[in-house]
């Protein structure tokens, strides 16, 4: 008979303060801050950890193998360390890998940690990192008459922001969402971040008008809409059900999870071929991930059963796009919840009470932070940005790859309906 997997819970959460320049710490020091905070939170001795899942954006900060340094800083000597890099979803993949390691029965206590230290590079996004995302393709195109003017045109729209700005207009055109709604979402993120001591862009009392007054980068995105490049790290400790029963007071169960991809959304596939996704706001990978994870978690009606969502949203349009894809709103209607205030901390469907990626973006860490923040909400330990209702279920997403990878995690106060 096939052996079933074990239930797994998040039993510890730790993160560092995020800011644009963490010059007070080196990379390993920063990561160790988050890991030891999580272990303290879990009341688990570093010696009890069986394995570590670690990750950040590949090559960012000019360090291709940061795990070679951090091992002894986080107490991982003589223990399995697996490094994971899946672009923007890295943190989500790290969190899910920690789940699998414990659910499989191989390990009882697993630490997942993810980070980014943007300020170690002279350029935001770090040439060595961001260029590597599509370097082969760009070089290939340059040899085939892709001119310098084409490169400059791409940089007008601006790398990742460029992908998102096209995506935003697709969404706005088919949904009726206006730039004012994006202003309101961004303002909400800044206000929520002000209640989160670890967040980066904190702006108490920020209004949509404050955001609307910022410079227009490329319609519909203003300066005030865009996420910062943050330095910071986050870590979670997960444990198997046997360990949880013996040792843990406030477990947050990982009830369901999925990570599906769609085909590339971002114009040019390998070898400069075209891609078959016409509308990059379609995000079919998120739809599939959500359906699979809800099924695993026994969630039948996400609108009723999900109490809070931590969505990966570097840009305000993505908070709305992904909230719909997660089944929290009908397609093309999430912007109405902006008008009604439903997405506020005290609203009916709070989105990113922590401020989300829009307020804090240490890229590798961002998707793990969503899982961490969702866990805090379920525990009731989110502090000032805790939603004022009983949280039974929360979701956490990640978005990365070539804008087509998704991680989706459902957390709750009880284990999922069955073992897998």
């Amino acid at each position, binding site marked *: 008979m096939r052996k079933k997997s074990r239930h797994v819970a998040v039993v510890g959460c730790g993160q560092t303060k995020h800011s644009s320049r963490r010059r007070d710490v080196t990379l390993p020091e920063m990561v160790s801050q988050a890991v030891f905070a999580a272990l303290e939170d879990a009341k688990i001795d570093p010696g009890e950890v069986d394995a570590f899942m670690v990750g950040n954006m590949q090559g960012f900060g000019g360090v291709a193998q940061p795990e070679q340094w951090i091992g002894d800083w986080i107490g991982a000597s003589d223990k399995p360390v697996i490094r994971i890099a899946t672009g923007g979803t890295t943190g989500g993949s790290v969190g899910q890998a920690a789940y699998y390691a414990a659910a499989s029965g191989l390990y009882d206590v697993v630490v997942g940690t993810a980070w980014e230290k943007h300020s170690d590079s002279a350029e935001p996004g770090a040439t060595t990192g961001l260029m590597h995302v599509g370097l082969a393709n760009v070089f290939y195109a340059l040899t085939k*008459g892709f001119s310098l003017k084409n490169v400059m045109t791409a940089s007008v729209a601006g790398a990742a922001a460029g992908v998102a700005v096209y995506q935003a207009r697709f969404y706005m055109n088919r949904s009726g969402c206006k730039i004012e709604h994006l202003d309101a979402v961004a303002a909400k993120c800044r206000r929520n971040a002000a209640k989160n001591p670890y967040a980066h862009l904190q702006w108490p009392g920020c209004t949509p008008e404050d955001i609307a007054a910022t410079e227009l980068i490329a319609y519909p995105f203003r300066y005030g809409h865009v996420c910062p490049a943050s330095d910071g790290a986050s870590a979670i400790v997960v444990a198997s059900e046997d360990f949880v029963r013996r040792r843990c007071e406030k477990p947050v169960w990982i009830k369901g999870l999925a990570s599906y991809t769609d085909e590339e959304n971002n*114009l040019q596939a390998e070898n400069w071929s075209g891609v078959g996704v016409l509308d990059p706001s379609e995000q079919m990978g998120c739809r599939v991930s959500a359906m699979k994870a809800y099924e695993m978690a026994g969630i039948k009606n996400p609108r009723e059963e999900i109490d809070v969502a931590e969505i990966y949203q570097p840009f305000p349009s993505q908070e709305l796009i992904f909230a719909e894809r997660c089944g929290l709103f009908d397609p093309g209607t999430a912007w109405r919840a902006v008008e009604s205030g439903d997405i506020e901390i005290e609203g009916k469907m709070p989105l990113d009470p922590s401020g989300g990626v829009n307020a804090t973006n240490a890229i590798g860490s961002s998707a793990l932070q969503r899982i961490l923040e969702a866990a805090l909400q379920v525990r009731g330990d989110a502090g000032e940005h805790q939603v004022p209702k009983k949280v039974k279920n929360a979701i956490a997403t990640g978005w990365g790859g070539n804008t087509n990878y998704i991680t989706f995690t459902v957390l709750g106060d009880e284990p999922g309906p069955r073992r897998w």
Partner: protein
Amino acid sequence: MGYIKDERPTTMMVGGSWNIGAYKYKANGLLDEYLEGLKEKKLIGSMCMGCGKVIVPPRLVCGRCHREMTERVVVSDKGTVTTFVVSPPIEKGKVKAMGMDAVELGLFTEGEVIMPAYVQFDGADCNLNLLILDADPKDVCVGMRVEAVWAENPVGALSDIEGVRPIPMECGGLDENQKKG
């Protein structure tokens, strides 16, 4: 918490650089078929015999059906804008790539407004990223009909298509909402 040493409140700054230019990649060469087409002002795509999707430039395997896309088709050089970006007036020092400045190089003029767009050419099931030329930003909208602006003497390079421009006769009939789109 962690191993932060009190006697060292800030990190040392150590500079360094990394030459990232020394790689050799393998390309499958399918793009050459597309470039040959450009010489004759033709847009060549590959068709999936499983789902019927046409992808430009040609692609080896269909992303959804995973079938080899062996058929070649020529799509129209007229199409529709599916999304677009309007830049603010370009200023010196603001548009840079690989350490070079676009205005200094004369690629764009100071104050110029550029409009990169996704264009779906008729018969294709994908977008191409091209500049909208000869148009007032106020008149550009999603759903706008455009045609390719070809280089005078195409040589079989990606730059043979300079961009797209509106087809005036096919532009009308959009309501105000679509224009704001």
